[in-house]
């Protein structure tokens, strides 16, 4: 079963992270890389992605005069997606365990775990 593990943060949180000592940031990156390698080794890895700074993000809503209506505002306190992992595991508990490990590596920030819907049907 595929699960997506979502890491979100606020602008303030991201700025605080960028202000960490360089070696702490590198250590954090190293732990995440280790987790990704372990997930490949265990045959559970599907994908992972860090997302661009939300400065570049846009929110698009419908069309006016044939052009997309874009709106790039992310309020200071609004949570936005920092990155995600997609894993393929036999149980939800395993997905939670992986999320727990990512959380532990990331100052215990909460990781949202969501199961993928499939295009399949057993019927």
């Amino acid at each position: 079963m595929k699960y997506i593990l979502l890491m979100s943060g606020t602008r303030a949180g991201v700025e605080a992270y960028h202000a960490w000592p360089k070696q702490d940031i590198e250590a954090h990156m190293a732990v995440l890389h280790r987790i990704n390698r372990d997930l490949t080794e265990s045959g559970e890895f599907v994908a992972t992605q860090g997302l661009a700074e939300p400065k570049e993000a846009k929110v698009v809503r419908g069309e006016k005069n044939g052009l997309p209506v874009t709106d790039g505002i992310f309020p200071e306190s609004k949570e936005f997606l920092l990155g995600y992992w997609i894993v393929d595991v036999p149980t939800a508990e395993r997905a939670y365990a992986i999320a727990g490990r990512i959380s532990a590596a990331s100052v215990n920030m909460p990781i949202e775990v969501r199961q993928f819907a499939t295009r399949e049907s057993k019927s």
Partner: protein
Amino acid sequence: MKYILMMNTMKAGHGVPSWPKKDLQAHIAFMMGFNKELHERGELVSAEGLSFPDQAKLVRAGKDGQPITDGIFPESKEFLAGFWIIDVDNPQRAYEIAAKASAAPGPGGVPLNMPIEVRQVMSGPPPDML
């Protein structure tokens, strides 16, 4: 250039829309057609739907290495319903695609105008991964 387009759930009851049957079918058909077109144009990398948010869990590490899974979501939280990853030549095309997704028809066939968040993603695996 790769972008992720994210759509949040429509808040209503169980999250399942209670629209008239033909409007529901029009919405489903629109989404299928939308994905098919992106696929035929070679712009679709992936399209995924997520299971409904009542099954969502917020997980933190526990003291003994066991995850804690009873985290409570903030009242105002918007949940991700699904996302597309597209590969396009420029950001304008990404916004065009997002606008089309946003205009998916809802009740009465009226475009929903859902907000679609557009973020750039890196083209290959992140450096030093694997």
